[in-house]
């Protein structure tokens, strides 16, 4: 497969692995957070850790939109479908996420709620046009990557004068979450949680560009290397991070030059700015309330805002008290440190955010890497 196989080549991977092994300083450790679930998935799926020296530790960040979606918001979506009898259009990822009262969108659907799986916001809009006598709500989730298509759907609905299409907006912002992690007491008090550098998002950065990360590099002295989602991208980015740390640099570098520019996609940014504005605060599952970390529809698009039309009042729902997702997302703990992991909390029955989607830290480790737990060595301890 052209343009894919080149980035998954085993020979190139071995060569890169040798270079990394040669260049790492064996007297120190390298704690690197990959923010995005896409990277977490690639790392686990291709077994990248097997190719790395033991003193590089990867910390799986909160960049999985399904994982960080609060249970209360899924309860809201289910209530819209069950109590308000709307057609709820959702991405497939959200269907299985457990909500309150043993429900999920998939289970609500089985009980008769009209939940439809869509591949894009345009499909949701199409549903509204095809069902003029029904209210259609698009369950909008995701980071900066999926936000512009939602903006387009809202503008298109306005152009068409659709009175039966609204968006239940749950779009969240990457830089705010990174700031939140860097500002957390464990990370700020130097030495408690080592966090040396970030692998920056791939698809998100195609939209927002590399500029927003310059702040982190400057203010927190953490290198950020933006990387594509293919395994060689990740390896190359790690080499770039090792070099920055060895040389004492803290810069934004771009490994994913085939798709990311410094300014990003200005047209997409303009669309988002037209339709959305910041929320003062938003709950992230695993991170709790994060200030200015999410978007809502502007007042002038109120007619397309499901929260306004259906007077949605979200009730917070707490995770299991032994759930360690918050600590795992900050790099304080790892999946196997949690007593729920692999016992009561599995991909079939996720208790916390990191187990919800295949991109979550716990689900990725459970699905692809748990064979390592049996023979884990002291070498891999933090």
């Amino acid at each position: 497969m052209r343009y894919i196989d080149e980035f998954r080549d085993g020979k190139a991977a071995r060569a890169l692995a040798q270079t990394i092994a040669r260049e790492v300083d064996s007297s120190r450790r390298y704690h690197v957070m990959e923010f995005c679930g896409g990277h977490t998935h690639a790392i686990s799926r291709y077994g990248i850790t097997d190719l790395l020296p033991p003193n590089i530790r990867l910390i799986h960040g909160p960049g999985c939109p399904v994982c960080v979606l609060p249970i209360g918001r899924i309860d809201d979506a289910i209530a819209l479908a069950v109590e308000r009898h709307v057609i709820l259009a959702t991405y497939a990822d959200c269907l299985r996420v457990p909500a309150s009262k043993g429900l999920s969108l998939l289970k609500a659907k089985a009980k008769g709620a009209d939940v439809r799986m869509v591949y894009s916001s345009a499909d949701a809009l199409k549903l509204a046009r095809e069902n003029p006598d029904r209210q259609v709500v698009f369950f909008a989730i995701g980071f900066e990557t999926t936000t512009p298509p939602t903006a387009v759907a809202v503008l298109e609905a306005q152009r068409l004068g659709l009175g039966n299409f609204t968006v239940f907006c749950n779009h969240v912002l990457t830089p705010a979450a990174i700031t939140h992690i860097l500002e957390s007491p464990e990370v700020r008090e130097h030495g408690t949680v080592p966090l040396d550098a970030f692998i920056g998002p791939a698809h998100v950065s195609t939209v927002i560009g590399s500029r927003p990360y310059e702040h982190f590099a400057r203010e927190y002295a953490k290198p950020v290397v933006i990387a594509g989602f293919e395994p060689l991208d990740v390896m190359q980015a790690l080499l770039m991070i090792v070099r920055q740390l060895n040389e004492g640099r803290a810069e934004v570098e771009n490994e994913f030059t085939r798709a990311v520019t410094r300014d990003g996609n200005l047209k997409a940014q303009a669309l988002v700015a037209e339709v959305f504005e910041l929320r003062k605060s938003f709950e992230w599952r695993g991170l709790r309330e994060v200030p200015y970390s999410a978007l809502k529809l502007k007042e002038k698009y109120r007619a397309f805002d499901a929260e306004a039309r259906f007077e949605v009042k979200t009730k917070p729902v707490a995770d299991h008290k032994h759930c360690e997702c918050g600590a795992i997302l900050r790099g304080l703990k790892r999946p196997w440190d949690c007593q729920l992991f692999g016992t009561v909390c599995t991909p079939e029955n996720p208790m916390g955010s990191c187990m919800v989607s295949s991109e979550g830290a716990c689900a990725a480790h459970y699905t692809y890497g748990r064979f390592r737990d049996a023979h884990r060595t002291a070498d891999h301890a933090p």
Partner: protein
Amino acid sequence: MKTVRTGYVRPIDFRSGHVDMTHGSGGRAMAQLIDELFLAAFDNEYLRAQNDQACFTVPPGRLVMATDAHVVSPLFFPGGDIGCLSVHGTINDVAMAGARPLHLSASFILEEGFPLADLKRIVESMAKASREAGVSIVTGDTKVVEKGSADGVFITTTGVGVVPDGVELSGDRLRPGDVLLLSGTLGDHGVAIMAQRESLGFSTTIESDTAALHGLVAAMLEVAPKALRALRDPTRGGLGTTLNEWARQSRVGLVVDEAALPVRPEVAAACEFLGLDPLYVANEGKLVCACASEAAPKVLEAMRAHPLGRNAALIGKVQEDEHHFVQMDTSFGGRRIVDWLTGEQLPRIC
């Protein structure tokens, strides 16, 4: 002049007619549908006897029985349709026991309003598949349900076959040191179906691999009747699911070599696009075989000599593992688990 022929019955309108409730009522309309459609297409001595059952002599050996319900959507897809699929599916389930399939039964649940032209096309496709496989459909049943109570047509087929003495195939017979052989490319059927679903709106040239595998099984058994441990056709859930079933049944671990897995470039591309893993995508004309390692070369040779096994490959091995993990050495150079599927394999968004 006499214008009315005695005994004339207006033939069923297979061009523009539709299934209605009378076609399942047990009355004249049903008898006519059976005569003009099912009997005409499947024609054999057992059906001609017009009894509610087929009575036949069974050759020596152990009897194998398998059943499979078919509810595929869309009903017609590149490379096949629900008709031939329902014949191949059950023949394969019987054949995976190492059996020679003998006969099939077919039960139809038809939705009121279903076009008779489509039904005829499906039944003729079943007849062709059954003829080509040499496995006759000897008894059946038809029911009609109200519009909205089914999705066009559902077909359940049951097959019987005979396993010769000395052939012992079962998913619990894998032993450390055995090897895994795969008869061909992964994921063709599932991707062909996905591409047809209208909500996706992309087109491919991929065709379903639907095929009856009993000939291939016979060729393999001929060269190594004792060395084969287990056979399975990795349909729903794909190869990943089959391997996990075996690891659990046999209480062993399996290791697969990703680089050895045959996947068509267009299937790999479609899976990439849809966020699917070919390891978990359905196949309808492929089998995976566990066999003693010393017999592997000649079994592989026999597979490759058969038209349905041309791309056969040695894909992995069996090892001791108290956790019964299925692991994969990735082409990239790492190792990972090939786990049970969680829920249905749904496309990811980003």
